[in-house]
């Protein structure tokens, strides 16, 4: 689905990532760890085509990112749900419409998906906030809304950047349960986090692999975690 081959990325002054190779197969569950500033977010951006590698090849669903047009990238993003660390929304639209935004931009009938949307909001504990505008939401609520928005299209891959960064323990457990549930349905999951507790508790429920970025390189972490 997502294949990186000897990928390097530099922001002009020296390489941030180099010789990164990874193959995300369908249904896999990955954690991505590493010190802050090590390039976790850059790595995720490479995985959904927001960045083009400065060296090597990145393939999304069998197509090289370099050969993709802007429209191709847009179509690919409908199959990859992304949760950013700093979730951004359309601040003038209520939460429910923000969560349904991927449906709107892809021309899907939002009326048909109303029950789906309700269930999803209920699951994320956001039903009572459906009419609230994004600036009125708390950090945790924003995080959950971003996750709901990322999964509403039922994407093949979900990439999440510190999805539990702003939520309390109980809510982070709930979010992880949702992600594990999605993984059991066959979705590919990749979560960047530095919360080892989350990784440990998840590994007891699902076969997850832990990737670590050390010295600009991606390594498979040992079983000690």
């Amino acid at each position, binding site marked *: 689905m997502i294949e990186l081959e000897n990928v390097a990325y530099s922001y002009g002054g020296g390489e941030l990532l180099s010789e990164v190779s990874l193959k995300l197969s369908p249904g896999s569950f990955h954690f991505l760890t590493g010190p802050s500033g090590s390039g976790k977010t850059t790595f995720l951006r490479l995985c959904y085509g927001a960045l083009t590698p400065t060296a090597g090849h990145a393939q999304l669903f069998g197509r090289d990112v370099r050969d993709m047009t*802007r*429209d191709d990238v*847009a179509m690919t993003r409908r199959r990859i749900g992304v949760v950013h660390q700093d979730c951004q929304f359309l601040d003038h639209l209520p939460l429910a419409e923000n969560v349904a935004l991927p449906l709107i931009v*892809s021309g899907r009938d939002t009326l048909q998906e109303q029950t789906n949307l309700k269930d999803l909001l209920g699951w994320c504990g956001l039903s009572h906030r459906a009419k609230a505008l994004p600036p009125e939401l708390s950090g945790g609520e924003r995080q959950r809304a971003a996750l709901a928005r990322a999964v509403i299209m039922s994407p093949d891959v979900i990439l999440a950047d510190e999805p539990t960064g702003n939520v309390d323990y109980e809510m982070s457990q709930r979010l992880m349960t949702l992600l594990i549930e999605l993984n059991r349905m066959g979705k590919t999951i990749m979560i960047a986090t530095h919360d080892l507790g989350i990784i440990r508790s998840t590994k007891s429920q699902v076969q997850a692999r832990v990737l670590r970025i050390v010295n600009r390189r991606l390594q498979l972490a040992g079983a000690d975690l």
Partner: protein
Amino acid sequence: MKALRDRFNLLMSGEGPADRVVPPTGFTASLTLFASAVMAFLAVFALALSLATGRLAHDWGAELARSATLRISAPEDQIEAQTQAALRVLETTEGVASARALGSDEQRALLAPWFGPDLPVDDLPIPQLIEIVEDAQGFDAAGLRLRLQAEVPGAVLDDHSRWRRPLVRAAERLRALGWLSILLIGGAMGAVITLAANAALAANAQVITVLRLVGARDVFIARAFVRRFTIRAFVGAGIGMIAGCLAIFALPAAQDEGGFLTGLGFQGLQWLWPLVVPPMAAVVAFWATRSAANRTLKDLA
């Protein structure tokens, strides 16, 4: 072909969800509306100028071209004979519908503004005038001059082209200026709308980022902006067009004495011309916003 149809659908599709994803902007919206109204108002005047001067050039050209004057200056005893000879030549000239020697009353009337009504025309050695009216084809002035030179040595043909040409040329220049103004107004409007669209795109950078993230194609994002500005330009130009038409309608009607100035306006079916202004404004706005949006979007991840 498909691209063209897409563009048409883009413009015509009803209130779509795409319109809602961009937050409404109150102030710039009214500025765009105002600018396109002003431009349309000016465009209506430029249009009126072009059409009026076009009409003027045509009228002057046609009226003056169809008449000419023959002046016969000769010793008093030969005038009558030469006049008859000239009339004979004119009768056999192709393209002359009629030729008539002016009577002394008429000549006196022509001279009255300069010499007063009491001028004893008969006692003065003034030349005899012959008025020539051309038919539709017109006559060959150079050929006629040659024939007259041979048969009526004292005749001078004036086909008015000497002073008709600069007038017609002036009118045609004015008309060209009018069209040029319309083009410039269209260009200025495109520039204003491009600036407004760029401002709107810059102000909504976060909206665009979010839309890209959730998989919106560029055409979807551009549509939200393009539709908005196209509609604003169309409505604004409509208001300006109506105001311009009312202003022109309120101008005093054309009079013989007023000539050019009061002739500014539309006649009959020409009143339909201003209706072209709002659609043209919409087309200009559509292209201006579209290229601005595409330029901005291309630079984003």
